[in-house]
């Protein structure tokens, strides 16, 4: 034993104090140390016969003085005890603390699964013995003091959207290890509906062109995701700055914006388009051929037939070709050119 070997090298006067300290342990240890220090360093040491005898007596003394293991806690548990005192926090499974006859493991052939004593499988798995419903209730009552009520004004999604139009999304990461930092935690996502922003037609079109893919037409939501700064607060500030800049820039009209060609247009506009010119020309020529009264282009434009044609063409170009659209186009063309219904 380390204590015994230490005695050999320590000064004589310290010996009684050490022996007194060891009085708590098995008395054999005291005797051994007393025996070994009685022989001064420099003598030949104990003879083999004496050593063997001392060892045999020592093991029998250890066996006699060995403290028997006490009864497990399960036998001293009351039936109506508070389980939260046995497992107050998350802890590994302890077979002498859990009064259940659990068996776990693959059984041997013609046998049963191994019992819970010394069962490593039961220790390996995470257990929820510390999270029984009464324990959770206790946690909740303790946490209630730190909670505030949800404001009663915000009782529907629309009200939340109306008061808080911008949604900020951040993610916190927890992992097992000595470090709290996770580089993925700096990403910030900003979401806002364009209808909540004060934009006129030109500003809205310009904003959508500026942000490109970040705008979703179906839900009318602009999503800005920032992660270029190392800290979350910096990314949030950058996101808000981007939103501000986009808003102000979209309201300004630059000089080069009046060079917008038809290829840049987001949607089809019928006025001043080739379709309008062609339709009006055709109608004028029809009228001229029939030698009816001269009708001016403005009157033609205002007439219902041309309006009908305009709506169908715009629908076709903007929404794509659907059954409905094509049928309506056919009807408007037949009315325009005064053809009788083709079956």
């Amino acid at each position, binding site marked *: 034993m380390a204590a015994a070997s230490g005695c050999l090298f320590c000064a004589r006067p310290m010996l009684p104090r050490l022996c007194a300290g060891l009085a708590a342990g098995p008395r054999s240890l005291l005797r051994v140390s007393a025996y070994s220090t009685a022989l001064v360093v420099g003598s030949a040491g104990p003879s083999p016969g004496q050593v063997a005898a001392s060892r045999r007596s020592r093991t029998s003394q250890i066996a006699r003085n060995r*403290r028997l293991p006490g009864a497990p806690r399960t036998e001293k548990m009351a039936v109506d005890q508070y389980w939260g005192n046995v497992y107050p926090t998350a802890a*590994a499974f302890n077979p002498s603390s859990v009064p259940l006859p659990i068996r776990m493991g693959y059984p*041997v052939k013609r046998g049963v699964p191994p019992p819970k004593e010394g069962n490593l*499988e039961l220790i390996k798995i*995470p257990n929820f013995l510390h999270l029984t419903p009464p324990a959770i209730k206790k946690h909740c009552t303790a946490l209630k003091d730190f909670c505030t009520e949800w404001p009663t004004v915000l009782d529907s999604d629309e009200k939340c959207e109306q008061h808080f139009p911008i949604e900020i999304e951040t993610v916190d990461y927890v992992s097992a290890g000595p470090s709290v930092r996770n580089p993925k935690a700096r990403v910030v996502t900003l979401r806002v509906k364009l209808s909540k922003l004060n934009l006129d037609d030109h500003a809205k079109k310009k904003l959508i062109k500026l942000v490109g893919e970040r705008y979703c037409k179906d839900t009318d939501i602009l999503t800005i995701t920032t992660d270029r700064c190392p800290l979350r607060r910096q990314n949030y500030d950058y996101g808000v700055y981007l939103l501000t800049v986009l808003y102000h820039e979209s309201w300004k009209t630059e000089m080069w914006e009046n060079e917008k060609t038809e290829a840049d247009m987001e949607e089809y506009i019928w006025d001043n388009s080739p379709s309008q010119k062609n339709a009006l020309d055709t109608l004028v020529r029809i009228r001229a051929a029939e030698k009816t009264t001269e009708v001016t282009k403005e009157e033609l434009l205002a007439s219902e037939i041309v309006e009908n044609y305009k709506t169908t063409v715009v629908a076709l170009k903007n929404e794509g070709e659907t059954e409905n659209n094509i049928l309506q186009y056919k009807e408007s063309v037949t009315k325009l050119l005064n053809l009788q219904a083709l079956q």
Partner: protein
Amino acid sequence: MGVILQNRAARVRVGKGDKPVTYEQAHPPHYIAHRKGWLSLHTSNLDGEGGAAERTVEDVFIRKFIYGTFHGCLANEIVLKRRANVLVVCAVFLQRLPPYKFYFLVGYTETLLSFLYKCPVRLEVQTVPEKVIYKYL
């Protein structure tokens, strides 16, 4: 297959029927997640998480350390659980040392490992009178 290319990983070869073997030793590695659990639980092996190598190196050191500190007293492998910052070492010991020595070694291990790894280390200890034999191979 051939007689040469046989798996020898973590397998106790069948003998005369006198070799006592624990549940952990009796099951070769292909039974993990079927009949065995994992000895070390942490989040680093999940998708997109880092630090797996550091945790593994820590695990290896801790196993060797405890094997040496409680020499001859280990009944089975050590189970390591990491819960946020805390390292929980679950060990099953044989009753070969008097309790006061166990307590001292447990305190010594906890203090030394906490200073070494700069995180709280808890040792949850169980004792059994003998090794729990699953079967004899």
